[in-house]
């Protein structure tokens, strides 16, 4: 039976999402530089636009459910980030929020479900699979790790997902891009991590820091 102290209620979820937003915004330059290496150099400012929008949206109309909190973030990213990242991260949060409808707390299982569902939608939207050097290579292992750790509670699930996504980022270094702006680099993309994957790991790391401190 779940440890109720290891869950987030609506307020805490919102606070976590604000913390995530600020953490990603803080890493704008890191993301931009990663995208300069193998893309067009706008990933950092795109993610900043999205998460600034998310903060504004959550402040303007405080979400009334966990589902809506996640959806608000997704909608902001979808409309403010633009580019590949806007569609992908927007879809991740929006699609991932749906199965949480009606839930009052975010627990390990809910978190795993959020990632599973978001991943599925993102795979469909982007038409890529693992191994193509995209954020999928961070989110897919994260979703698997979260599912495995779900029973051990939210903190564990998030920590496992964060660690898996970080490994996923490292793994993208050894992949040759076959989609997105890095595709035409071919072997020259080797050695560089995928910017979108880094964003995934930053998001999950921020969630981990938040829940660890919570």
């Amino acid at each position, binding site marked *: 039976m779940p440890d109720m102290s290891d869950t987030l209620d609506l307020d805490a979820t919102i606070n976590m999402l604000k913390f995530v937003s600020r953490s990603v915004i803080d890493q704008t330059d890191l993301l931009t530089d990663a995208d300069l290496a193998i893309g*067009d150099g*706008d990933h950092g400012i795109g993610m900043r636009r999205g998460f600034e929008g998310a903060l504004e949206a959550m402040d303007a109309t405080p979400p009334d459910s966990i589902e809506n909190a996640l959806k608000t973030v997704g909608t902001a990213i979808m409309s403010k980030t633009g580019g590949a990242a806007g569609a992908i991260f927007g*879809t991740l949060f929006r699609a991932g929020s749906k199965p949480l409808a009606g839930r009052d707390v975010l627990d390990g299982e809910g978190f795993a479900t959020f990632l599973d569902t978001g991943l599925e939608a993102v795979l469909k939207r982007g038409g890529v699979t693992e191994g193509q050097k995209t954020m999928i290579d961070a989110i897919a292992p994260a979703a698997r790790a979260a599912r495995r750790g779900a029973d051990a509670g939210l903190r564990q699930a998030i920590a496992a997902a964060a660690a898996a996504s970080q490994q996923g980022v490292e793994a993208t270094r050894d992949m040759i891009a076959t989609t997105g702006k890095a595709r035409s680099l071919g072997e020259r993309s080797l050695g560089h991590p995928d910017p979108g994957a880094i964003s995934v790991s930053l998001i999950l790391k921020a969630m981990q820091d938040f829940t660890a401190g919570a």
Partner: protein
Amino acid sequence: MANPKKVLNDPKQVVAEMIDGLVLANDGRVRKLPNHAAIVRTDLPDSKVALLIGGGSGHEPLFHGFVGRNMGDGAACGQVFAAPSPDIIYEAAKVVHRGKGILFLYGNYAGDNMNFDIAAEMLEDDGIDVRTVRVTDDVAAAPPERTHDRRGIAGDIYMIKIAGGAASELDTLDEVERVARKAVANVRSIGVAVAAGSIPETGKLTFELADDEIEIGMGAHGEAGVSRQKMKSADAIADELMEKVLSDLPFRAGDEVALMINNLGATTMMEMLIVNRRIRQILDSQGIKVHRSDVGTWLTVQEMAGFSVTLMRLDDELKRYLDMPAESLGYSRM
């Protein structure tokens, strides 16, 4: 290194301010949607197949400069080098729709594809017929058997011109889509970068090239090309670009083509005309006839130096739509 020197106000507001300036420069022929970064014609006929174009900003006059008579009916504008979001595309589509369906025409990039697709799904939920044609003219981006993986570069302009003409004259979305698909199947381009451009908000050059290097096949956001090499003569560069473009379709003796040389930003017209001279020698020697030429600045990559060469093989139908008069800020012809 100092940030590239640009005449700007707030680097975060470049797109919003650019759109204001663009609408004003159109002398009333277009307007901006009140709450979205989209441009639409003010003189849209009551009934026509709609043509919606769009993509990331920073390539001015592409795309938002090509809204006007016999060109795009509207354009969805993203941030610099970032596809527009689905809500912008959706709202613009709703406004340009005139009851006969909408053709989405844009360059083939993951970001554009996903955002336009999401908008298309929203419009289909509303019962509006949407077709999508993605421009895939960059031969440097993928081998011929994977044209669906190719980027859209300056072929965009001929595509907008043809689809714009077709959408003015033809009565059904099916027909307009058919003409656009024929055009995209017959257009091929390749670019060469001589110096990098920068994104205003980051102030960073999007790639680095040594003082004596060029990159053949570089994409419109600085994506890697097919080969980085030492600077060589205009003729030698033209020879290499033409070899890649001609062998791809392939273009053959007897073909009639439209030829575009497009400035990526900071290259002089003098250089492009010198290149044009060589390209015409090559086409002549291969028995390929040039039906029309366009040499100018239409798809830019901020202050990138370099240019691209586009060839489109024409039949009578494509000629008809390509040669229609056109009126827009970025491309206008009698």
